[in-house]
């Protein structure tokens, strides 16, 4: 199957005063649609930088990042925004909901940016996703009226509402207690199984890593290890190739 994410000799330098920090030092990585991948590595190893590259919020210094067949470094800012809107969903460590909007409005937000669906269809999808993440009751609450786990579930619903090909999550459980964190991972896995959405997330947490199907270790800006993991007994079977969401 053709890769949905393809990184080729990706180098990312950050200028730091007179020095340059090499956050990524030539990363080659391909990810197929429907994969559930964990990016692991010590602090400062380059996980966030790597996810930023895949998420098209930043471009490599050298090398290429190709997302759904498009090389991000060659796109104009506007085209990158469109690519993010249409192909990618983001889940952040700090949830990053829009504080003035309710849970439902936050989930609806990417659809409004899309501007393609009618009110009725938008509301149907929002309700469906809030239901799926178990927040139907909290639809009208503002982020500051929700618990951390609830906020992250809103963020997951927001990331999925446009039915993106790829969902990126940078340490989605770091700000949650371990029980809530695992519940969030279960939810992501369920979505992965149901919709064949590609999930890529970074984490430090051993318990969370145990749920991944593929683990990419990164150390000092380079790939250190890349291996497939056996599915843990408790979780759903991997989706059939070509399964529709």
């Amino acid at each position, binding site marked *: 199957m053709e890769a949905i994410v393809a990184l080729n000799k990706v180098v990312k330098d950050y200028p730091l005063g007179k020095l340059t920090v090499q956050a990524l030092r030539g990363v080659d990585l391909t990810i197929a649609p429907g994969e559930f991948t964990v990016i692991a590595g010590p602090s400062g190893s380059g996980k966030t930088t790597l996810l930023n590259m895949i998420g098209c919020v930043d471009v490599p210094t050298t090398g290429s990042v190709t997302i759904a067949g498009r090389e991000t470094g060659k796109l104009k800012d506007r085209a990158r925004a469109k690519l993010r*809107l249409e192909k990618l969903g983001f889940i952040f460590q700090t949830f990053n909901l829009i504080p003035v*909007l309710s849970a439902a409005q936050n989930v609806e937000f990417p659809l409004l940016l899309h501007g393609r669906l009618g009110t009725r269809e938008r509301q149907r999808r929002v309700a469906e996703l809030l239901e799926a993440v178990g927040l139907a009751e909290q639809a009208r609450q503002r982020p500051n009226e929700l618990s951390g786990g609830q906020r992250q579930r809103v963020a997951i619903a927001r990331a999925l509402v446009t039915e993106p090909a790829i969902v990126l999550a940078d340490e989605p459980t770091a700000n949650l207690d371990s029980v809530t964190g695992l519940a969030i991972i279960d939810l992501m896995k369920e979505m992965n199984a149901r919709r064949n959405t590609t999930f890529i997330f970074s984490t430090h947490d051993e318990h969370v890593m145990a749920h991944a199907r593929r683990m990419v270790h990164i150390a000092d800006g380079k790939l250190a290890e890349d291996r497939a993991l056996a599915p843990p007994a408790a979780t759903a079977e991997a989706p059939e190739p070509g399964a529709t969401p």
Partner: protein
Amino acid sequence: MRAILKIAFHNLLQARLRTTILTLVLAGVTALLVVMGALSQGFTDTLRTNATALSSGHVNVAGWYKSKATDAWPLINDVGEIERIAKENTPGLDYVVRRDRSWAKLISRDHSFFVSPSGIDITAERRLKSILKLAPESAYKDGGQDAPVGSFDRLVEPHTAILFASQAKRLGVGVGDYVTLTSPTGSGRTNSIDVTVVAVARDMGMMSNWNMFVPSADIHELYQTADDTSSAVMIYLDDPTEAEAVMGHLREVFAARGYTVMDHQPQAFFFKFETVAGEDWTGQKLDLTIWSDEVSYIDFMSTALDSVTAILIVILMGIIAIGIMNAMLMSVRRRTAEIGTARAIGMTRSGVLAMFVTEALLLGLFASLLGAALGALLANGIDAAQIQPPPMVSALLMSDTLHLSVDGGQIVRAVVVFTLVTGLAAVSPAIRAARLEPVTAIHHTS
């Protein structure tokens, strides 16, 4: 766009204190603009009402006569014929009157000064009669009664006069007293007539300094002029806004009938004596004007009012714009992570720009609508309260009470301008927000 509107709207509600303060200030300034505009409009209205009663029609067919090159007499000879032509060729005509204009010295036992007496037929002067109000006797006579005395209608009698209260006071005369008018005649001698004051009118601003009224026949006697002469045929229209068009039409009509029509000079007739006296021709020329020409010497008042308003508004708007800019800059700083999130989700740079500008536009629209409504209420309230300003002010405003007139177009302009200024003030902070790189913005901690 829906997403942008939603966020902008909710942010305004969220930042309640900031929104309230900015709204109040903006609304206040809008209200001020509307009130000042209403004052200026009220002044223009008063000016038109007064001018078209005291010294001008909506359109005037006046003329100048020169027996020798250095002469200048505000006279037309065949006034009956000119009046007939004017009547026949004026679309939307209400009525016409004849006026004899002159310049004479008004003398009492104690005092004298120059005035511009108008010779009129009081029975034909509908507007003049409706606008003149008898002054209480105490307004011009020490120990006079508080009720008005005399009657405007007595001006049908020969050798009578209507004065204004401030004139009567300066002259030390009242109803029933004699005053003398003296003036040089065409033959180079000075003539004089005695007239009885039959009524004293309430002052109407500075125009009441030099206007007074006598029967037409008195002016003819004073100047030794024939019955078929007069100074002007004053034309009143059903729709005063047609004045300029009607004047243009009548110029052509009179020119086509062989009359010499002077080039249009937007000045009051009494400013033209010198110009005409300096011109090298003899005989008669017609001079057509509209009401605003005859009061153009007072244009400075509207200009002054409008300038004061403009300066005030520009200063206040500047302060508000700076306030809005600062508030927006703070908001951009506070919401940096939110901007990063929105960008990561797929909002474009122009989307971010629009988000902040929309927030300001919404605020501006709401606040200026509120302010305009308040201003209109306030202006109508002040107008209804019939407030009496100090004499200096009422002299300039042509009215003894403050008159304000709210104009719909002016309100719309105020709302549009204020909304735009608010929006513009947000542009530079919004550009700053739009320039943020999504990566750095997401990880920003405030």
